């Protein structure tokens, strides 16, 4: 079986929005924690340049899919926390349906040994 070394840039970019929305569906979070969780869950294969996360977060906020608030960490460090809005839940569901469909077509083709 082919071992995935690193996810390609295009796929990383395409998956950023659904992954961020899905992570925030678990509860509010902040940039650094989001990056760490994505790295851990993908075993370091899905690597974002840390700084590139923030423009995505800001765009999602402009589109009213997520909201933010300034708070403090346990050590008193300022942090900007993001959480999902109702519109974000709808967007996340749409992403989930789309990705599930793509995955199912792909998996079926593989099962039939066309891939």
């Amino acid at each position, binding site marked *: 079986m082919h071992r995935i070394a690193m996810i390609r840039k295009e796929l990383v970019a395409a998956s950023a929005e659904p992954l961020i929305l899905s992570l925030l569906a678990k509860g509010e979070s902040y*940039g*650094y924690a989001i990056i760490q969780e994505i790295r851990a869950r993908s075993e370091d294969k899905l690597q974002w*340049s840390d*700084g590139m996360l*923030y*423009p995505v977060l*800001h765009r999602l906020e402009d589109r009213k899919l997520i909201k933010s608030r300034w708070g403090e960490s346990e050590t*008193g*460090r300022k942090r900007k926390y993001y959480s999902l809005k109702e519109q974000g839940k709808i967007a996340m569901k749409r992403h989930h349906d789309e990705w599930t469909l793509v995955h199912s077509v792909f998996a079926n083709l593989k099962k039939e040994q066309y891939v």
Partner: protein
Amino acid sequence: MFDIEQSFTEWRKQMLAAGIKTPVPLVELEIHLREDVEKEMLAGADAEKAFEKAARRVGLAGEIGTEFDKTSDRNTFMHKRYLIANAVLWAAAILASAAIHAPVVFSIIILPTLAFASLVIIRPKSNDSDCKKMTPTT
């Protein structure tokens, strides 16, 4: 000798030169950088190595600036939409007043109401209004 605060200052200058606005999002990026530097140092790296690794992970100022520009372009579009909505609202108000030969008293009531509506109700929301004064904690 390596001065970590000087490195943060230099890094901030690079970000500002790339067009990243302050306080937001620059503050947010700096908080992220400081958190990463701290984690590296806790894991045993010296300050210089920790800063280098964390700054590399944050990415190149130019690339981040370009990504933020896309967000600003969208905001500019939203602002234009807001201006057009206002213009249409006011044109409608003026035409309506003329069409019904509105008395001066009527205009005094309806026009300020529309002004209120256009300025308050359909005003684009500012997302970062509550964090303008925030600065990163060292």
